């Protein structure tokens, strides 16, 4: 038998630099939790694992590697370090036993990219019909939409620091889209850059 078999994110180390940077973010733990988001048990377990407050509609609360994102009226995406998923899932099953809910490990389902730079919004605006202007897409909002021809979701970690997630199978496509949109010389100069 051989060594420990290595787990891999979708595009380990993928990175491109133009007027904005695009970097693959590597492995991250993720759990899809469907249930009654108004139930205190669901809220408690979600915020406990996420280490943040319960987000409202279209909201995302994050701290370091942890986040709770509102995905639909009965669905949350919990994010955490990859190694902690099993424990977190166990916690969910224990807390919500007997209730109607669904929790699945989706850590390997998606790829994540960080689009960074003062003009990061422009990279997205080239690819999505969603309004990504500062008023419509501030920090704390998660927007599920499309990038090019595939579904994706994105939020601000901070101004100039946008995280994008998409399905794993299209990681290369989305990376290429983002890298192409961020090419130096293709700045649009539309969104005003905060000082």
């Amino acid at each position, binding site marked *: *038998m*051989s060594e*420990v*078999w*290595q*787990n*891999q*994110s*979708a595009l380990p180390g993928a990175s491109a630099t133009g007027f904005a940077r695009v970097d693959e973010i590597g*492995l991250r733990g993720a759990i*899809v939790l*469907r*249930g009654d988001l108004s139930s205190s048990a669901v809220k408690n377990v979600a915020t406990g694992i996420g280490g943040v407050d319960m987000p409202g509609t279209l909201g995302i609360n994050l701290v370091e590697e942890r986040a709770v994102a509102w995905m639909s009226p*009965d669905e949350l995406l919990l994010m955490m370090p990859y190694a902690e998923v099993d424990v977190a899932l166990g916690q969910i099953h224990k807390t919500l036993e007997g209730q*109607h*809910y*669904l929790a*699945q*490990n*989706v*850590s*390997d*389902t*998606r790829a994540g990219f960080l689009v960074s730079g003062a003009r990061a919004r*422009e990279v997205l*605006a*080239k*690819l*999505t*019909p*969603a*309004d*990504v*202007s500062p008023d*419509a897409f501030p920090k704390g909002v998660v927007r599920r939409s499309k990038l*090019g*021809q*595939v579904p994706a979701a994105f939020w601000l970690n901070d101004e100039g620091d946008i995280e994008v997630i998409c*399905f*794993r*199978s*299209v*990681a*290369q*496509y989305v990376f*290429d*889209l983002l890298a*192409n*949109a961020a*090419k130096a*010389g*293709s*700045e*649009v100069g*539309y969104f*005003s850059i905060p000082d």
Partner: protein
Amino acid sequence: MSTRLATGGRLIDHAAPMTFTFNGKEMQGYAGDTLASALLANDRMLVGRSFKYHRPRGIMASGAEEPNALVGLGRDGQFEPNQRATTTELFDGLESTSQNHWPSLDHDIGAVNQYLGRVLPAGFYYKMFLYPRAFWKHVYEPFIRHSAGLGKAPQDRDADSYEHFHVHVDVLVIGGGIAGLQAACAAGRTGAKVLLIEQTAHWGGRAPVDGGVVDGISVDAFTQNLIAELDAMENVTMRLRTMGAGVYDHGYVLGYERRTDHAPDMGGPRHRLWRIRAARTITATGAIERPLSFSGNDIPGVMLASAVRDYAVNFGVAVGDRTLVVTNNDDGYRTAIALKNLGLDVPAVIDARPAGGGALAQEAASLGIRIETGKAVAKALGGKRITGAAVCAQAGTGSVDEEIECDCIAMSGGWSPVVHLWSHCGGKLIWDADHAFFRPDPARPPLGAEGQGVVMAAGSANGALDLAIALADADYAGRKAAEATGYRPKRGRPPEAEQAGEAPILPVWQMPEGADQTLRAKTWLDFQNDVKVTDVQLAAREGFESVEHTKRYTTLGMATDQGKLSNINGLAVLSEALGQAIPATGTTTFRPPYTPISMGAIAGEARGDLFQPLRRTPMHEWHEANGAEWEPVGQWRRPYCYIQGDETPADAVTREVTAVRQSLGLLDASTLGKIIVKGPDAGQFLDMMYTNMMSNLGIGKCRYGLMCNENGFLIDDGVVARIDADTWLCHTTTGGADHIHAHMEEWLQTEWWDWQVYTANVTEQWAQIAVVGPNARNLLEKFTDDDLSAEAFPFMTWKDVTLNSVRARVFRISFSGELSYEVATPAGMGRAVWNELLAGAEEFGATTYGTEALHVLRAEKGFIMIGDETDGTVTPQDLCLNWAVSKKKHDFIGKRGQQRSHLCDPKRWRLVGLQTLDGSVLPDGAYAATQARNANGQRKTIGRVTSTYYSPTLKRGIAMGLVENGPQRMGEVIDFPMLDGTVQQVRIVDPVQYDKAGEKQNV
């Protein structure tokens, strides 16, 4: 001749000369020139040939409305035909070529067509090419194909890049002339988010050319102030070289930015398509001057009066030494005055109005310009260039009073507001008889989602030709638009301009009024498509009363300029011929784009690698590096087979199938859909989704299931595994993952919303590897201590297995008839597990296998494949899968559909195996036919091939097919006529052609 003036030209930089070529000849221009102004400065008036008669054509306009000056630009990967010289900014090294002539622009053989003008009238093509019938294919069509089209299609792959950009604004202002600037300012001052776009490279539009005084300062200075104010507003974005291309539903507008056409070395995308969502749109798109209809009005040197003025004022180009102005309104005098002030000769202004003009006419007279009122041009004189004009009374039939020598005729037939964008999405027009134009009807604007008007026209686009009125109109539009989007306009008065006392226009649709047939036959309406006054009159005589029909019959307005100059004149002529008022005739439909936009801009980034998303499994790179021949399956790429050495694909498939049957094969099955269904009502729900029972599936067990739509037709199949008391895992086909998940959610959300069921599509969470063949168990046992024996892990069960510390979910299911395990691990582990299993499998002589071997293996076993045996009209019963259709369940999706008489018909085509008598492989899709004839006298078909392969296992062709009443005809031989006329004799056999007892998979 046309020349560059020593000084002047507000847009050009005399200090920055540039070199360009036209038909290979080197010429000089200046930075700020358009290709048209530079050509004129080089006395290049003749720039193209017309479409039908190959008449010499000169530059006629100075903007987007230009019908004649179409050129090819660039070369190789950057060649582009049919570009308007008037909207092409000059750059150093620009290469241009003229179009639609042979052998050369100056000596064009096709020009012989103009002498055939009398036998090439409107509708010529429709009349001529009808008979004799046989001529169509060999004579007419090749001839038409040869003559069709103006420019040549590019031969090379487009070397440039393109992109889209999505923006959401409160107020979009289209047009950066003085009205657009004022409207944007008025809106911007409220704080509304404003986008202002202008198609040319300059702000201000016509106003600085035409002059005037606003708020006590020159209109030029006033414009500069507006630009500066807008520039300072954070909430306003301004883009030059960006055309409003189209207005669509719910405030969707396309903007076409030509980023680098004027500076090819700039880098970055050439064009950017702005996909704009605007709560309100203001079309400040200006107006276009109309030509006058007189004989010879297409001769090079006849130009719109405003264009002559533009070339002089903006580019310092004198189009002629002696310019005769002919007009029916006051604006024409502006050209006479401008030229006179530059020291050029204006022999006369021919004003069709008996009473002449207003203040501008007086100014012209005071400059000593001769003014002839009530007069017309009977005929323009000249061939490749104007030499003079015959002048007559407008009221008469054209008896010539005198001939005036000139080398340019500047004509003004009045102005038409650019209503295209207003009209694209349903805005209606009204005929303004006082000004003789159609303008937007404010009572019937394009409607938005709230049912309210979402587009406003402003300035001359709204019919406000006078500067004072235009500014007030634009200010109002800007405020109103901002207010409608929730902003509060500040108080304040609109800017005030001095009004010129203008005399009214005299509508003139034919010059002179009573022009005879000879004159009318040389009076052009559509310059690019060669439509003359007589053509439209002929169409009216022949019964084409609808303007849309006349357009198509005569091709009026159907050229690349879409009739920007010709439409109003044409429909006025049609109205007159029909004896009705112009509004009764109406306009043709305005459709986007305003001017042609590049295919590249429409495609945006979606070309090359980004043309379509390509879905990759975690093992994709391995396949690529190991000889995979790809097969597209939806957006996935799956290996069809793996080529080793000199193998053909057929060799590889044979090797792969044989290895699986004899020892071991590995298949990347990650693309199979995987959907978790969980909840107290999940069992009940799955019983509705599947034709068979899923609620009673034991925990740890697997069951093959079928899904139908409400019609009763089979849409998907796959193995369902019961995970725990309230959780099932449903496998779907590769192509089915997304739409079966959507199908489930649809029923849950819209029909049974009180059922407690959650689903999750976890397809991409898992890498799945099928380990298949007699040595499958032996391989997995190398990696685990878990008990994989037949007793501990029987067929159609699943188990969590630890493979070298990796937790895998293993399904003992088979799509090949062999001992088989499907090993699912988290996707991120897929590549490592694949590598390790392959390394471990070497000792068994194992191979990876692709989709074709998978197909052969399943076909040998008579397993159906969605998309091969099914085509959306096939039921489970057709496929003899009645065993998987529950008779106990009172309902499932498709049950009622399957009860319909046609679906119960015993004569339906049903699944059988097919075996050629000579052992050869049947062609896919071949039909079986009897000697009987159907109602159309054709041989009656009784079946078709759905799957057909060479079986390496059986060493002959195997096939499956649907045959009328097939299962009752076992052993019968039927005929399959082949494309080459021969007939294949085929025996109907059991679809299971290998290991009927299923002993191999049950070990």
